[in-house]
């Protein structure tokens, strides 16, 4: 080895060469697909969903290559590799080598993907290159400096990625050309400056760790602990063990979704609502995005929530929970209630913002036109229009809650393959949706409405399977819980059916689809939306996992 820096880089290569090979393979496939797709198509066409998907995966894998950490003390939490502290190199070099290598790698990858990914976009390539370099620096700095935050770093990284995405969009927001403060040059300089500061902080952090004095450096990591301590603390004794466990679950996992929704509202939706306040169409689109936020966030949060411990990859029931004087039914019921409380708080946060936005700075033109149509469709009754709005919110809350509790059956079972398969199914659906451009599904159905028939039969088979599984899964659950949950299921299903019928009544006028079949599809989907079998299975799964 010619020098310590080369040795550091060689180690990265040795550990991740298989991932690098996959990235290279994805890049080659992506370019080949691009050549095949653009053959004979003149002009500037946008990149296909498949190419975009391949590019996204390649970039995500690059971040896996430069996840420059080691596992500490069996906690499963990565941190800056301590073994490197004994090398005869400065701390600056220890920190700079992976950072510079990461920036170089991502710029090279961007160079290869720049043409297909930036086609049709308004953002210039040099600006994107600066943002990607900054992202690498923020990424490494965050995972090194916030090691005490554990898995919570994923949320921080998510927020950083979303923030940089918003920054990349700022120059193209109307009015254009952009003001100086949001021009590409200014923002690139700002991001480069912030990246430099992040790098210096990371360097100082590693140097302190190396010198054995990292107390101050732990401050950032303990910030999350401080937030947990600062949140309301209960002093009075709990009336029942179930109430105590509810409080425990809420503090451990229930609060995450509301915090995330609040974060997205403050960091993304609120600034965008201000920047896009002139156009009524943008208001409508952003409102739809805002209403979808809790539902979308509930997918990953629900996956973590369904485990016995939110922040741990271990699926075993912790001893602290296992010895509680509560049955498996009680523990699952607590999870279900915490999920409900979490969803209600998340939606309250969102609706509070939406109420302020709509009344203070939103352009209501498109919304007003939509309201006029609703008025006309439902006897010009204000009560009907507000009722539909309320149903939309209730349906949103139900779907959010569904995604929070729908994986309890696999997460609480303690069986890793089952849980991973269950979580992977979400990713498969999302990736398949992107790859096959799910947005074209309505058009595909409209081309030949007969295609709705097999879909209806599949939905019917799924409904039958789900409800017979439910009859089996709830066999051992106490009647009290069955009665209570059945009322929830019935109320939720009724609300979704009502909204589905209202939507069908409006949509069927415009779609040349057989009205009866469309209504059948809506009914079948509504009857499957609120989970029944899964919650019943969670109880038996947890009972087995608890006594292992």
């Amino acid at each position, binding site marked *: 080895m010619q020098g310590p820096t080369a040795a550091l880089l060689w180690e990265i290569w040795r550990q991740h060469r298989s991932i690098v090979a996959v990235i290279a393979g994805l890049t080659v496939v992506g370019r080949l697909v691009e050549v095949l797709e653009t053959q004979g198509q003149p002009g500037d066409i946008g990149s296909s969903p498949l190419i975009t998907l391949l590019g996204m995966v390649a970039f995500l894998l690059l971040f896996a290559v430069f996840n420059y950490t080691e596992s500490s003390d069996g906690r499963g939490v990565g941190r800056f590799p301590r073994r490197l502290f004994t090398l005869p190199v400065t701390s600056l070099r220890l920190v700079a080598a992976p950072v510079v290598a990461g920036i170089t790698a991502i710029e090279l990858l961007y160079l290869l993907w720049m043409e297909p990914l930036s086609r049709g976009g308004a953002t210039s390539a040099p600006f994107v290159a600066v943002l990607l370099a900054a992202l690498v620096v923020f990424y490494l700095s965050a995972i090194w400096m916030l090691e005490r935050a554990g898995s919570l770093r994923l949320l921080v990284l998510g927020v950083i990625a979303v923030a940089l995405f918003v920054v990349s969009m700022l120059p193209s927001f109307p009015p254009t050309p952009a003001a100086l403060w949001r021009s590409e040059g200014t923002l690139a300089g700002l991001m480069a400056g912030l990246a430099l500061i992040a790098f210096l902080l990371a360097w100082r952090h590693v140097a302190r760790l190396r010198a054995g004095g990292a107390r101050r450096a732990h401050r950032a990591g303990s910030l999350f602990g401080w937030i947990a301590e600062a949140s309301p603390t209960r002093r009075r004794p709990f009336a029942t063990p179930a109430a105590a466990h509810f409080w425990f679950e809420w503090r451990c996992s229930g609060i995450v979704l509301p915090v995330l929704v609040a974060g997205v509202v403050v960091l993304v939706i609120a600034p965008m609502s201000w920047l896009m306040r002139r156009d009524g169409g943008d208001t409508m689109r952003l409102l739809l995005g805002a209403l979808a936020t809790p539902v979308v966030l509930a997918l990953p949060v629900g996956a973590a929530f369904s485990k016995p411990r939110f922040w741990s990859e271990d699926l075993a029931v912790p001893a602290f929970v296992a010895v509680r004087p509560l049955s498996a039914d009680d523990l699952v019921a607590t999870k279900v209630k915490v999920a409900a409380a979490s969803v209600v708080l998340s939606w309250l946060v969102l609706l509070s913002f939406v109420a302020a936005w709509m009344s203070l700075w939103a352009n209501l033109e498109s919304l007003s036109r939509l309201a006029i149509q609703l008025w006309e469709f439902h006897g010009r009754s204000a009560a009907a229009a507000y009722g539909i709005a309320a149903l939309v919110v209730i349906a949103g809350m139900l779907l959010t809650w569904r995604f929070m509790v729908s994986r309890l059956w696999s997460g609480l079972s303690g069986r890793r393959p089952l849980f991973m398969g269950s979580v992977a199914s979400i990713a498969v659906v999302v990736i398949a949706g992107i790859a096959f451009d799910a947005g074209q599904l309505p058009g595909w159905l409209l081309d030949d409405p007969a295609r709705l028939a097999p879909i209806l039969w599949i939905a019917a088979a799924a409904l039958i399977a789900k409800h*017979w599984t439910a*009859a089996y899964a709830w066999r051992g659950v106490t009647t009290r819980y069955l009665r209570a949950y059945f009322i929830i299921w019935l109320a939720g299903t009724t609300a979704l059916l009502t909204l589905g019928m209202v939507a069908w009544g409006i949509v069927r006028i415009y779609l040349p689809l057989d009205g009866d079949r469309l209504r059948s599809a809506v009914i079948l989907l509504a009857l499957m939306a609120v989970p029944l079998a899964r919650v019943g299975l969670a109880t038996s799964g947890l009972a087995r996992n608890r006594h292992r």
Partner: protein
Amino acid sequence: MNAPLVILATLLSALALYLPTRAPASTRVIVDGRTVRMLVAGRGDATVVFENGLGGPLEHWGKVQPDASRFARTVSYDRAGVGLSDEGPRPRDGRRIATELRQMLRAAAIAPPYILVGASLGGPYIRVFAGMYPDDVAGLVLVDPTPDSSQVDDAAGLPELESLSDTLEQARASRVPTGLPVVLIDAVAPLYVPFATEAIRTLRKNGRREIEAESVEYAQWLDQIPGGRLVVTTRSGHNVAQEQPELVVATIRQVVDEVTGRSQR
């Protein structure tokens, strides 16, 4: 197995097996080598044919046709290039559409005479049909039809709008056969504004003026038709078939009774 959930699963299984078996109601006929989608329903001495407004599929009559089918044979269809019907030759003016409608009805073995019901742009189309084939028509119901004075600033690439001035000219030139029952539904409910922006308030103000002008024009046209009747509704806007389907059904019923000679209840 949990007994109450077994009962629920049984009931829902029966429902799940029933729902997909509901057969599609619409049919296809081939006219001049082109597919036209139509929906024929009901039985009766009279045949009611629905003509849509601009761009709407036959589902536009979804709240009217089932009720009208209780006392008459009813036919709705997708015009060429609309819904699931194939594109038709241009220009898409009233005469072309009337010709294609007649061909379709003949191809589907639906014998005249017909009571024609036209909404919006369908109004001028059925007037042209009545002028071209007076022996095939037994009555006309015009549901807030497009007025003869309408103009289009931007046809937005829609073939029927591109031919609108020709269609309206053809409608003006069409004579309504003598003694034919003709009813025109004039919807005058103003645009309701739940939370108005300035643009919507302006739209509402202009809309009110347009509605008043249309009412005058409808009345003048009906004055030329012996026995022509005007039904004014203040409970509906332009989409009467969605907002007040019971009014459309009742009006059709009156015309059907008149045509078939049955006394009204």
